[in-house]
């Protein structure tokens, strides 16, 4: 059995613990582990794309926390939190250990198994009943992060950190080549790591933080024609010739280097307020080397040739100069009245270049006459700059009797400039130039609390002069309201609502969108051991854009409609002999996507002795589509766990 990095690190943590002949008493902990069984009927791909809970051993939770009880010479703070390590799809672990004034160390780990094999997305063959689509993947992401602080809380605190993010997996994808799309088997692996060091300087009224990191990323990707996929998606001939692939392969290696500098300073102005400033600089560079080769019966419209093979190399690089700065002041001008204002500016200046050299073999013209090999060279240099500036001022009056009030105004200015090349690489159209947008935002809120009644209302209005992207709005208004009645121990009720309306009335855009969302919860506790819970949510959304269909240049509406609800109910019963939790719910959506999901959950915990109990859990999900029904599934999971509590 191969010992993973996680295991080694947790083993190290455990060894630290066993240094505790110095420990004076038991460390409080909570541990739950066992096995989960999974049974899926129907489209298991869709189950895995949505839920992906796997069968296998599972460390559901582990918490260990020691304060003064663990007065070891090595540490006076220790906390470990572990959640769902084992059978996927996601798990996390965190270790915090330290000794006051000496050191503080934090390590976290997270793991995600991601799966996607959807019947109706990116699937040109759906009408033929072929599922899933042509883009599927099963990937794994592992993220590690560690930070060590020496002399925390002191005048000078050195800080060392390291982050590692590994993303890898097999996938299926497609490539467009020679007049058709062909399915590929892909394998890729990208790691992204950043060692960093810095310090915190605290002189009392002035605190400064500085951190320098070096982000390095390395990614490799290999793609090969999927066996049996040589016919491509298009079964028709092109210019009278069948299009097919005999072989195809592609490799790509990308390296990225980004030194990241972060600095911040806080100046405390007595009891009056404080001034804060931050600065970030991240100048990145990427370099990509790649190859592409294949044989087939293909066509190149730009060269007006049929060809029987290709061989290409690519060298590309990108440079991005990013910086971000902010300054902010906060002041307490009256008791409970705070004023704040600040300025943030973010700048991105990016250039890119590519040299792509492709040789087309065995060429012939459209009349069928053999012609020499063709060498195509594409040399692109592009550039863009983007600047975002935000000014905001606000006031908070924290207590006016039972009321609290707040108001914020902000002005955002966005500026994007594109060079000629980057603007015309897809379809010539004169897209280069400068794009600007200014947004004024007003945001206000009021809260009220008295006698167990809590009311919360918020209003926000965004007003922009124009759009940069066509999907940008020029006007958006948001209302939110929340009411909670928490006056009695046996009954609690709350409700929320959100109303959003947005539009862009610029000529040629004329888009509108409305979003409504309502929710309500009722908790009833007729006896202290029993809680009944009911909740309902309803939502609608409706957005419309006029779009131009490329095949006939007709203007048609792009409509997105959602109209759905959820109803849930559940109970929690805590008795000496056992605890029981059960819930059930239905979620339904109509509109652009029609489906229904039924979910049921149940769990019982039976104490065997004071510190030990057995846990059994059951979960059932049924997903039903009302149009295509390719993705329908039902899935049940049964988990049996041992639960040990010692705190």
């Amino acid at each position, binding site marked *: 059995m191969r010992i993973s990095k*996680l295991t080694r690190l947790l083993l190290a943590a455990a060894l630290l613990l066993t240094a505790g002949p110095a420990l004076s008493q038991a460390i409080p902990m909570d541990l739950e582990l066992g096995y989960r069984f999974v049974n899926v009927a129907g489209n298991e791909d869709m189950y895995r794309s949505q839920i992906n809970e796997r069968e296998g051993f599972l460390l559901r939770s582990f918490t260990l926390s020691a304060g003064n009880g663990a007065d070891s010479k090595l540490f006076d*703070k220790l906390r470990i939190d572990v959640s769902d390590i084992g059978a996927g799809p996601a798990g996390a672990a965190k270790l915090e250990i330290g000794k006051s004034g000496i050191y503080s160390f934090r390590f976290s780990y997270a793991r995600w198994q991601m799966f996607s094999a959807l019947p109706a997305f990116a699937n040109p063959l759906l009408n033929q009943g072929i599922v899933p689509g042509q883009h599927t993947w099963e990937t794994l992401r592992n993220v590690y992060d560690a930070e060590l602080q020496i002399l925390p809380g002191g005048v000078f605190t050195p800080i060392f950190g390291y982050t590692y993010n590994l993303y890898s997996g097999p996938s299926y994808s497609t490539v467009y080549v020679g007049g058709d799309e062909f399915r590929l088997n892909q394998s890729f692996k990208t790691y992204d790591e950043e060692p960093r060091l810095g310090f915190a300087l605290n002189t009392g009224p002035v605190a400064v933080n500085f951190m320098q990191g070096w982000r390095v990323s390395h990614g490799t990707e290999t793609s090969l024609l999927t066996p049996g996929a040589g016919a491509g998606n298009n079964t028709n001939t092109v210019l009278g010739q069948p299009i097919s692939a005999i072989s195809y392969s592609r490799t790509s290696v990308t390296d990225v280097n980004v030194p990241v500098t972060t600095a911040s300073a806080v100046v405390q102005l007595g009891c009056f307020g404080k001034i804060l400033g931050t600065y970030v600089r991240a100048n990145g560079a990427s370099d990509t080397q790649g190859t592409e080769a294949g044989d087939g019966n293909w066509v190149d419209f730009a060269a007006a040739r049929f060809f029987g093979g290709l061989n290409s190399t690519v060298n590309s690089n990108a440079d991005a100069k990013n910086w971000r700065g902010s300054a902010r002041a906060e002041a307490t001008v009256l008791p409970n009245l705070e004023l704040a204002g600040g300025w943030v500016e973010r700048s991105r200046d990016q250039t890119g270049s*590519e040299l792509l050299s492709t040789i087309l073999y065995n060429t012939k013209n459209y009349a069928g006459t053999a012609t020499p090999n063709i060498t195509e060279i594409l040399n692109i240099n592009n550039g863009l700059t983007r600047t975002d500036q935000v000014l905001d001022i606000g006031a908070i009056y924290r207590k006016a009797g039972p009321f609290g009030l707040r108001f914020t105004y902000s002005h955002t200015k966005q500026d994007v400039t594109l060079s000629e090349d980057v603007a015309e690489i897809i379809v010539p159209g004169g897209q280069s130039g400068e794009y600007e947008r200014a947004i004024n935002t007003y945001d206000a809120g009021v809260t009220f609390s008295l006698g167990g009644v809590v009311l919360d209302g918020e209003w926000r209005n965004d007003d922009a002069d124009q759009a940069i992207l066509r999907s940008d709005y020029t006007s958006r208004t948001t209302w939110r309201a929340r009411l909670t009645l928490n006056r009695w121990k046996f009954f609690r009720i709350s409700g929320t609502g959100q109303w959003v309306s947005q539009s862009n009335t610029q000529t040629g855009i004329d888009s509108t969108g409305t979003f409504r969302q309502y929710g309500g919860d009722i908790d009833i506790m007729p006896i202290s051991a029993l809680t009944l819970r009911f909740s309902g949510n309803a939502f609608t959304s409706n957005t419309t854009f006029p779009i131009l269909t*490329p095949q006939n240049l007709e203007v048609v509406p792009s409509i997105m409609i959602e109209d759905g609800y959820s109803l849930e109910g559940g109970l929690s019963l805590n008795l000496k002999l056992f605890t029981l939790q059960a819930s059930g719910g239905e*979620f339904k959506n109509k509109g652009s996507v029609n489906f229904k999901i039924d979910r049921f959950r149940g769990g019982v915990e039976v104490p065997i002795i004071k510190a030990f109990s057995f846990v059994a859990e059951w979960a059932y999900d049924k997903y039903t589509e009302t149009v295509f029904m390719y993705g329908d599934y039902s899935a049940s999971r049964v988990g049996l766990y041992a639960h040990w509590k010692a705190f």
Partner: protein
Amino acid sequence: MRTRIYLPGGILLLVVVLLLVALVPGLTLAAETPKADPLADSVCASCHGDQAKAFLNNPHDRTLAAKGWRVDAICEACHGSGTKHAEAGGDKALINGLKGLAGAEACLKCHNQIGDHACSICSPVGAKPSKGALIDTASHLTGAHAPQPAVGCLDCHSIHSATFTAPKLLVKPQLDLCESCHPTTVAAFRNKPFTHRVGRGGIQCTSCHEPHGRQGKAGLKLTRAGELACVGCHAEKKGPFVFPHSGDVAGDCMSCHQPHASNNPHMLVQPDAAQLCLNCHTQLGGAKTLGAQPPSIHNVSLARWRNCTTCHTAIHGSNRSPQLFK
């Protein structure tokens, strides 16, 4: 595709190690030198013994005790002088009970600056940055959850009765806690078909949101390089790309994706990929918008052309294909 039984490498060893950690008697051995009972001369503990004993495991106690503070002084740091309260036999009117906004005021005496340890007793304005935490900072006084009569520090944190399995002295697990005021958002995580996995094993609300962050910005965290929290995990989409797409040029990830949960595959804002793409890639005269050139020849009435990402696979940015083909 068959369901396989997963037994990740080392998981059994991990379980054994954790059990050993918990069970090995060595952990529970008495210290070589018996320590004095820290509560022995405490006036507060003479009446509030259970609370005082439990508080020994509290980070507040730990931090101040390490600096030589006596137990009673630690209690009085928040509750004010307890002399009259004790002399009156425990009259509740003579001690600061720290309910509601008054409780928050006591917290804010130290925690006026967002940071891991922002205790003005030990470090007046806080000096302990964690990754990215101070990029877009605000204070607890003006943040999104700035204390008001309707919401205060003690609505989320319990100084004396925090749930053991919830860190940061939270009164209950984070997702349940956030749901008490944001039920529709949490219900979406629970109900919608395509979601970020939040809660057990997955990310937390605070993976992306700074609960004490600035007003009006959804309290979104930024990476150390000032990017949206999305690329903190999805690092391969950071670039820089030779041929970037929307997120790097204008807009951001949310131009195409819903951040919490969605009814649409890949958490897109719209289920039909072609319509989503054409919302931007359409030129109807009038306003000049970025990327508005319409595609040529594509017949989006046919399934083969309607799924733009079938060919434009490198939709988040490419280093080799101007058309984002690869």
